[in-house]
């Protein structure tokens, strides 16, 4: 039995997904990156090796997310893809005919427009991270509500409070103020969801033609309050597809499957990479006044990859 592995290394979470030849998800992992991508990838591979069926053979690997280069080198990826394309591929597969993808992850949010199955436009948040997963996490901790309950609570609200959502720091001040005024917790949380949706639509979604079917994914899609707020603001149904939280990894696996079908073989290094010792070190290159920060990845004592230089001379591992 053949399986295809997709790995999405994001700033907050690292996700691993295995799909089978019928492109069904048979295993998925959602882990906290916690600033240690190498360790998390190794751990994830170890866990995955245990959960997969005995006869499963990995026939292709794709990586995506901001740590896609690193992950690609570690596991021997057949293809390294940006997360926008990965998300678009996965959602087209899960939600046939999808025209708009709203994605909110740990630290970034994006919108992808598709027409006739082809990406026609996209945008990512540039200067503002208000309303992404990290902020919601922080608020849940502050209000002492488990993040899983956060969304459900919002649905109980009958009279959402208006919260200033432009800046997450001011949003927090405003929430504290509303609490002090005596508003109910669920009304404040529902108000927060609405503020974040407003912020998203004004920032990332500005000037974009949002047409149904609309898919909402990324970690924040677990929040029922956010889904409801999107539906209210857009006046349209919003679909949260299955595996919404690991969609990037699903996309990477689908792309890897296609790539391997074309190339005919995989570069996958096997699950035993979890036993090797990997290390990332960086140095400032003094070769010219550009002062590039070059990152080196070591497998035991051997350099297996370098990047970060502007001139390209360090990319050659033999140097």
């Amino acid at each position: 039995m053949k399986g295809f592995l997709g790995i999405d290394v994001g700033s907050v979470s690292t996700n691993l997904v295995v799909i089978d030849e019928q492109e069904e998800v048979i295993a998925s992992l959602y882990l906290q990156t916690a600033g240690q991508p190498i360790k998390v990838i190794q751990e994830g591979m170890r866990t995955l090796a245990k959960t997969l069926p005995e006869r499963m053979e990995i026939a292709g690997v794709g990586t995506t997310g901001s740590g896609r280069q690193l992950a690609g080198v570690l596991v021997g990826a057949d293809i390294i893809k940006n997360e926008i394309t990965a998300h678009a591929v996965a959602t087209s597969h899960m939600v046939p005919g999808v025209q708009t993808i709203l994605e909110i992850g740990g630290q970034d949010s994006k919108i992808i427009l598709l027409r006739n199955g082809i990406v026609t436009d996209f945008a990512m948040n540039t200067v503002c991270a208000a309303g992404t997963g990290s902020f919601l996490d922080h608020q849940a901790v502050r209000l002492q509500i488990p993040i899983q309950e956060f969304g459900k609570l919002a649905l109980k609200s009958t009279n959402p409070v208006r919260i200033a959502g432009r800046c997450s720091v001011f949003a927090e001040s405003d929430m504290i103020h509303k609490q002090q005024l005596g508003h109910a917790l669920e009304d404040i949380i529902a108000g927060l969801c609405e503020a974040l949706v407003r912020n998203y639509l004004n920032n990332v979604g500005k000037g974009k033609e949002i047409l149904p079917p609309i898919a909402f994914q990324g970690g924040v899609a677990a929040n029922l309050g956010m889904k409801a707020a999107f539906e209210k603001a857009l006046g349209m149904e919003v679909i949260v597809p299955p595996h919404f939280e690991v969609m990037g990894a699903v996309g990477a696996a689908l792309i890897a499957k296609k790539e391997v079908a074309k190339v005919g073989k995989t570069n996958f290094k096997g699950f035993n990479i979890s036993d090797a010792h990997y290390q990332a070190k960086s140095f400032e290159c003094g070769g010219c006044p550009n002062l590039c920060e070059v990152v080196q990845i070591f497998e035991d004592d051997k350099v297996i990859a370098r990047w970060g230089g502007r001139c390209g001379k360090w990319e050659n591992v033999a140097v």
Partner: protein
Amino acid sequence: MYVGFPHMGNAHIGIRGLFKALGILTIDLPPVNRLTVELGAKYSPECSCLPFKTVLGNYIQALEKGADCLIMLGGCGPCRFGYFGNLQEKILRDLGYDFKMIILEPLDWRQTLRQLQETFSPVSWKQLIYASRLAWGKTVAADTIESFSHFYRARQSRPGIITGIYQRGLEKIDKAYDLASLRTIVKEVEGEMKAAVLPFEPEIKIALIGDIYTLIEPYVNYQTDLKLGEKGVQVERSIYSSRWLKENFIPWEKKKKRRKMLRDAKGYLKNMVGGHGLDTIANAVRYSREGFDGIIQILPMTCMPEIVAESILPRVAEDYQIPIMSLAVDEHSSDTGLQTRLEAFIDLIAQRKKDKKDYFLSKVHEAS
């Protein structure tokens, strides 16, 4: 007297050539780097644009290295640029530096000459003509090989090879002191580049438009042209220093250019909106008509003219069915984020050209 001037891509080669030929000493700065931007951002108003901050950073670096005269361009378009020199002078004086500031106003040759004559020892007409021709020659040569690099990089036989030839060419141009050898260098560079490419046509052609400084200074645009080129995309940039000089210091060229811009932008924008706002719209229309596969607008955060253009570009994209992406940069932008957007934009275009898709996936894979 030691003259300090800011960087803008390869413009320093021509400027340095001009001063050297006039016997005026200059301060040679390293290319714009992290330190330049950090220094500039530290002492600039928060909402000023990245070009302002970078230029200020360059001035501080020059003054620290012993410059006592700074040169800046002025202007009177409805963009903040016209006041950059004056404001930067004020900031630098507040920081306690002592220097002479010369602000050259385009379209006013007489004043420019007088300013230069007053500051520097008397320069003969003969010397001035020789120096200007040399500086012009160097600027054109540097711009020519840069446009070659945009063309050939997409076809290169191995990563980085064209960039290497281009960099060596720039060094030679910097050292050359007569027009004949400049011509030879340009020919040599083209020959070397031709020998370093594979015989195929790039599938994707992307035009870069937007604010002049952001387009020309590689540190500020995160080397977008190079990133695209290394992924097998042929790039064309809407502006070079030499063209800008021609269009701003020669009155009839300026008129001709403005007429052309207004004609191209017809139906979208009928006024100068400052900076390069009108140019951005006109160029977007022109490149769409010329059959480019995609357009990327690069603008500094808070740049008013480019923001006006940005809000009009979706209509151009709709009318000509061409993907247009706007990238705003400031000192907080991230290289990773930019890389992701560029890769996704290339994918988007490749998907549109579906029949050629397989070729590109392999190309992108190779490059990454």
